[in-house]
């Protein structure tokens, strides 16, 4: 709040935020006044939290600063979660002052909330509120932001960031009013992510206009960067990969205004960053590594080091291109072994961090920071002699095979060098013989036939390049790997799916309907025996539903005729395919229910399949890869 107060006092007339979707902007003074009006509203309703459930828009900075002003924590919630997950999180933050989009607000009426505000109305009211003399809350130890971590296992944890952590991060990384008047930041990370919070606070303190990009796509990003004359932006690796791919064939990104492009949030493939450096020759690249629990960035690889790494023959310097740089001012990094002893340069261990911006605290779970201020990040890595930090997976990713510790990242890097491999994940699976067995999952490059031959070739490929203990005992081929939205590989999910293949069952595409979706729903439930998992009926009309049955899962979704391609429009000469763990059992089940279905067959491409026709005449095929050695039937 103090940061915004300074911004309003120092350069109140500058434009602070622009939402290009609605063509609206807000200045620092207007933002300050709106936050004051919102703070009054928050206090009046007795809320203990300000919950925000929305995409990037002008209401987000208003609510963020208003919560600080009113002295209650700001809790952004991931709008991509399912309705049940959102409900569970909302229950944990009551009594809350909830701001959400108009459609959701209408459907939430009557919920237990201290106050429910629809975004547009919230913005309109607070911006009309005029200057506020509302008393400000100022305690540095108050909670500024509660951020739910992605929670890939179990219940999401709420990371606690106090004002002193956030302010310390901003003061040590940003100079007040340092942005020139024409500077603009393109913020495309979601507002419930620490990078989104950090970008908002940094830009406000620097006086840099923020252009909000609500839904990332490479084309939208490129268009916005050019149209809004963006000077600085932050992207996660998957975003940069898509931007680079969208610019394929162009010699230059043609964004002369873009002075700096920073990235972080996951492992950046070296091929992507090299292509990006070539496409954006005038742009400064910065790699930032940080965590929610550390109020964002703790190490930085700066533009000079990027250029030096590209230009030099020196191996140590060029390797730094894949490092996350050195600790920020006021931040200390230490690598420790499993017993907590500091490790020398070059040795892999768990990354520990210490500094004023480090919180390491979770709601209802206390702080993970030790007596000397060190926070264990659970990330693994090593430092070189000069203090450059190299990330190497998670501390608990390490595979222990026959007493030998190995890092899955090294094996993945070798697999990725093979021309047939588009993506790879390596995990340790329980093994009676070795304790853990090295298991690889590979996404093959498009057009590459997968199967035993390729698996053998990849095993041989690793064997030629690494110790034999590193050779994967098994190689599975998937169509894609699970990543979180900032591009971190969800290794635990890979493991879970390998251990229990039912975890692997996902509807490949939703079935789209323009006609009688209820009739089809009845067919799948009453006739085929699916059970309804979840359905959504805005305005009393089924928009989509999720169905499941013993290892098969599918989704029916209403669509506008204009949305449909030939495939989805129900051409009966085209089949739709769904993954199904046990094709034979499903077939038995169909027969027992009187559904006409021929016995399963194995297609020439190695999939066991059973096919039924839906009421619209479409072929619905459930399939699963056959075991190696099983014959094909034509």
């Amino acid at each position: 709040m103090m940061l915004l107060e300074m911004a309003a006092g120092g350069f109140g007339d500058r434009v602070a935020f622009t939402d290009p979707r609605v063509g609206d902007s807000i200045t620092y003074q207007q933002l300050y006044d709106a936050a004051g009006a919102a703070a009054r509203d928050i206090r009046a309703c007795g809320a203990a939290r300000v919950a925000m459930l929305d995409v990037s828009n002008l209401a987000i900075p208003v609510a963020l600063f208003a919560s600080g002003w009113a002295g209650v924590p700001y809790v952004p919630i991931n709008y991509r979660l399912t309705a049940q997950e959102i409900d569970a999180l909302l229950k944990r933050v009551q009594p809350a002052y909830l701001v959400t989009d108009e459609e959701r607000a209408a459907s939430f009426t009557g919920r237990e909330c201290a106050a429910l505000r629809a975004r547009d109305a919230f913005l309109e009211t607070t911006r009309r509120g005029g200057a506020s003399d509302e008393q400000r809350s100022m305690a540095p130890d108050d909670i500024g932001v509660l951020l739910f971590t992605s929670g890939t296992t179990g219940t999401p944890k709420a990371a606690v960031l106090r004002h002193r952590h956030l302010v310390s991060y901003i003061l040590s990384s940003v100079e007040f009013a340092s942005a020139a008047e024409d500077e603009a930041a393109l913020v495309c990370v979601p507002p419930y992510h620490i990078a989104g919070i950090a970008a908002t606070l940094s830009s406000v303190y620097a006086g840099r206009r923020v252009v909000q990009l609500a839904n990332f796509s490479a084309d939208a990003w490129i268009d916005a960067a050019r149209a809004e004359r963006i000077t600085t932006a932050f992207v996660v690796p998957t975003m940069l990969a898509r931007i680079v791919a969208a610019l394929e064939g162009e010699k230059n990104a043609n964004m002369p205004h873009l002075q700096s492009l920073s990235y972080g949030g996951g492992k950046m493939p070296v091929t992507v960053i090299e292509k990006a450096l070539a496409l954006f020759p005038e742009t400064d690249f910065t790699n930032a590594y940080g965590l929610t629990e550390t109020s964002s960035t703790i190490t930085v690889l700066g533009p000079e080091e990027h250029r030096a790494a590209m230009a030099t023959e020196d191996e140590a310097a060029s390797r730094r291109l894949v490092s996350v740089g050195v600790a920020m001012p006021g931040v200390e990094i230490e690598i420790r072994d499993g017993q907590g002893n500091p490790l020398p340069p070059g040795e892999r261990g768990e990354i520990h961090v210490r500094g004023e911006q480090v919180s390491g605290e979770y709601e209802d779970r206390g702080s993970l920071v030790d007596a000397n201020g060190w926070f264990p990040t659970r990330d693994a890595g090593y430092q070189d002699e000069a203090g450059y930090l190299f990330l190497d997976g998670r501390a608990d990713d390490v595979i222990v095979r026959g007493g030998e510790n190995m890092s899955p990242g090294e094996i993945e890097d070798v697999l990725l060098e093979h021309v047939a491999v588009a993506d790879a994940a390596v995990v340790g699976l329980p093994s009676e013989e070795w304790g853990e067995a090295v298991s690889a999952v590979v996404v093959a490059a498009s057009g590459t036939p997968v199967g035993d031959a390729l698996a053998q070739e990849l095993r041989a490929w690793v064997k030629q390049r690494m110790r034999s203990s590193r050779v994967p005992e098994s190689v599975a081929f998937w169509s894609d790997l699970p990543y979180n939205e900032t591009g971190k590989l969800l290794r635990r999910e890979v493991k879970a799916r390998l251990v229990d293949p039912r975890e692997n069952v996902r509807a490949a595409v939703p079935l789209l309907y323009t006609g009688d979706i209820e009739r089809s729903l009845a067919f799948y439930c009453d006739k085929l025996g699916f059970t309804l998992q979840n359905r959504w009926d805005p305005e009393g009309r089924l928009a989509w539903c999720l169905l499941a049955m013993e290892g098969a899962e599918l989704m029916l979704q209403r669509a506008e005729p204009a949305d449909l391609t030939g495939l989805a429009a129900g051409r009966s000469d085209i089949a739709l395919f769904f993954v199904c763990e046990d094709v034979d059992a499903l077939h038995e089940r169909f027969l027992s229910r009187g559904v006409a279905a021929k016995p399963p067959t194995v297609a020439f491409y190695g999939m066991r399949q059973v096919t039924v026709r839906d009421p619209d005449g479409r072929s619905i095929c459930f399939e699963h890869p056959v075991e190696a050695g099983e014959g094909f039937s034509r």
Partner: protein
Amino acid sequence: MPALAPGKRLKSAVCTTEIMVITAPEGDVDLRCGGAPMAEDGDGSGTVDAAHGEGSAIGKRYVNGDGSLEVLCVKAGDGSLSLGEDALKVKDAKKLPKTD
């Protein structure tokens, strides 16, 4: 004189200056603005001592000689900051790449 904890906000008794403490030595600290002691409820109504009248600038950080005291100016004013009689100096801005 109050002990100063990081995060504490003080106002000038003689001008519009407001600061936030970033680091402070233990014990009582004689932080002044425009020659007069700063306080949480400083009302700015007094007169700036001409010897301490160069002013403070918003967003600048001010430090004493040994760096044991550092404050951030969050609101500018006509008085300049001092520890006792010794003027605080503006701390040089760091050059850091933009990270977000």
